[in-house]
C-alpha cells in the first residue's frame, strides 16, 4: 500500500508541477513572441503612460510569483499531508 500511495502522491505532484511550468512557459514565451511580432500592438497606449506591452510584461512577472505561490499553497495543504502520512506509516513498519 505504501509504495502505491507514494506513487499516487508523486504523480499528483508531477501533474501540478508540470502544469504550472507549462503555464509559466506559455505566459513568458507568449510575451516574448508578441514583443517580436506584435510591436505596434504592444506599443498601443491603454492610458497615458501605460502601453499594452508594459502591462503584459509586468503581468508575466506578477503571474510567475502567483504561480509559485499557488504551488506552495497546494503543496502545504495537500502534498505535505500525504507525504507526512506515508512517512508516518513507514516508520511504524508500513501498511496498516
Amino acid at each position, binding site marked *: 500500500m*505504501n*509504495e502505491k500511495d*507514494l*506513487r499516487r*502522491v*508523486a504523480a499528483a*505532484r*508531477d501533474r*501540478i*508541477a*508540470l502544469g*504550472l*511550468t507549462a503555464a*509559466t*512557459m506559455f*505566459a*513568458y*514565451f507568449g*510575451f*516574448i*513572441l508578441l*514583443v*517580436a*511580432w506584435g*510591436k*505596434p500592438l*504592444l*506599443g498601443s*497606449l491603454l*492610458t*497615458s*503612460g*501605460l*502601453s499594452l*506591452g*508594459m502591462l503584459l*510584461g*509586468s503581468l*508575466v*512577472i*506578477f503571474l*510567475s*510569483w502567483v*504561480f*509559485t*505561490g499557488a*504551488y*506552495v499553497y497546494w*503543496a*502545504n495543504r495537500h502534498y*505535505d499531508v500525504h*507525504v507526512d502520512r*506515508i*512517512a508516518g506509516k*513507514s*516508520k511504524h*513498519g*508500513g*501498511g496498516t
Partner: protein
Amino acid sequence: MNGVQTSLGETSGTAIAFFLVFISATLAITGWAARKTKTTSEFFAAGGNVSGLQNGFALAGDYMSAASFLGIAGLVATSGFDGLIYSVGWLVGWPVVTFLIAEPLRNLGKYTFADVVAYRLKKKPVRIASAIGGLTVISFYLIAQMVGAGNLIKMMFGLQYETALLIVGTVMLLYVLFGGMIATTWVQIVKAVLLLGGATLLAVLSLVPFGMNPLALFSKAAETYGPEVLAPGKLVSSPLEAVSLGLALMFGTAGLPHILMRFYTVPDAKAARASVFYATGFIGFFYLVTFILGFGASVHVGRTAITTVDKGGNMAALLLAEAVGGRPFLGFVSAVAFATILAVVAGLTLSGAAALAHDLWVGVIRHGQADEKEQLKVARVATIFLALVAMGLGLLFKGQNVAFMVGLAFAVAASSNFPVLLLSITWKKFTTRGAVSAIVAGVVSALVLIWMSPTIQVDLLKNPTAILSLKNPGIITVPLSFFVGIVVSLLFPEPEAEAKYAEVERRMHLGAADTEPVAAE
C-alpha cells in the same frame, strides 16, 4: 565632465563612510559566523539552520547582481521598454526552480547539485562531469562580476581597477574563508535588504514630483523622448533569437550552482519551497522597481547626461540618486552597489569551492572517504584558490566587453546542469553514460556555438562576418543535451541505476529521514 554636473567618480566621504559601515558590519558577522563554523556541513550549508524567509532574502541577494540593478536601469533609461524584456526573462527562471528542482534537490543532496545526479549513478564520472559543468558556469559568471566590479568601482569611487579587484577579492575571501555559508548567507541577507530598501527609496524619491504615480512619470518620459519609449524597440528583432535567449534564461537559473547550493541551507523541503516563493516575490518586485528607476533617470537626469558619463548607461541609477537625493544619497547607493557585487562574488566562490572540495577532492580523489578535519581544510584551500582565480580572471579580462558572459553562463547552465539534474530526478532509465555525455554535449555545444556567433566573431574578434548568425545558442543546445542524455541512456542501459530509482523517488518526496528501506511492504 562635458558639462554634466556630478560628483560621481570623485572620492566621496559619504560613500566611503557607508562603505566602511557595511564592511565593518559584515566582517563582524563573519567573526560571529566563524565561531559557529566548525564542521563541513556548517561551512557549506550553514548546518541546515537557515529559515525559509532568511533563505528567500539570501537567494534574492545571490541573484540580484549589480549588473541587473545598474544594467537594467541603464537600458530602460536609454531605450525605455526594452529593459523590461530582460527583467521578465531573469524572473521566469524562478517558478521553474520552485516547481521542478528546489524540493528534490533539498531531499537528495548535501552540498552540491552533483550530489543529486550522483545519487544512483556511478559517483566518480558523474561528479567529474557535474563539477566541470558547475565550474564552467561559475567561471563565466565570475569573470562578468569581477570585470564589472573593477569598472564600476573605478567609476563610483575613482579607485584604480586593480585596487578595486584586490578589495573585492580580499573582503570576499574573508567572508567565505572564515565564515563559510553562515557568513555568506548573512552577507546576502544584509545586501538584499539594503538593495531592496535603497532601490525602493530611490523610486519613491523619483516619483514624489509625480504625485507618486508611476504612470505620470512614464508619460513624462514619453513626452520628452517620444512615444516609442513605451513600445518594444530594437532589442528583440528575431523571434528565433528571442526564444533562444528565453530558453537559456528560463532554464539557466535552475542550473546555477550558487543558487542551487542555497537550498541545502534550510532544514527541509517545505522550507526550501517557501524560500523560493519569498525570493521570487523580492526579485520580481526589485525588477519592477528598477523599471521605474530607469524612467526616473531619463526624466530627472536626462539621456544625454547619462550617456556622457557612461556610454552603456550603467550609471543611470547612481546619477538618479544624486539628482533626487543629493551627494549623501549617491554615497549610500554607491555603497549598496558595491555590497551587491561583494555578495554575489562570495556566493559564487563558495559554490565553486564546494565543487572543487566536495565533488572533486572528497568524491573523486578520496573516493568519498575523508574525515571531517580534512574536508574542512580542503574546502578552505579551495576557497583561497578560487579567490585568487577570481582576481586573476578580473585582471586577464581587464578592458574587455564581458557583458555576454552572464548570458553564456546561463546558456551553459541551461544546457548542461539543468537537463542532467532534471533527468536524474524524473527519469528512471537515466544512466551514468547518459549524464556524462549530456553535460559534455551541453557545455561543448554552448561554447562552440557562442564562439562561432557574431558576439565573438564580429563584436570581439572584429571579423566582418560570423560563421553562424545565431547569437543565443539555447534553442539548439538545451534540446541537444536532453536528446544526447536520453539516447545514450537508452543505448547503454544501466540496470543498477534503474533499480535504485525507487529509493530516489522515495527520498525525493519523503526526505532524508525516511531513507531506510521499509521492512514490511
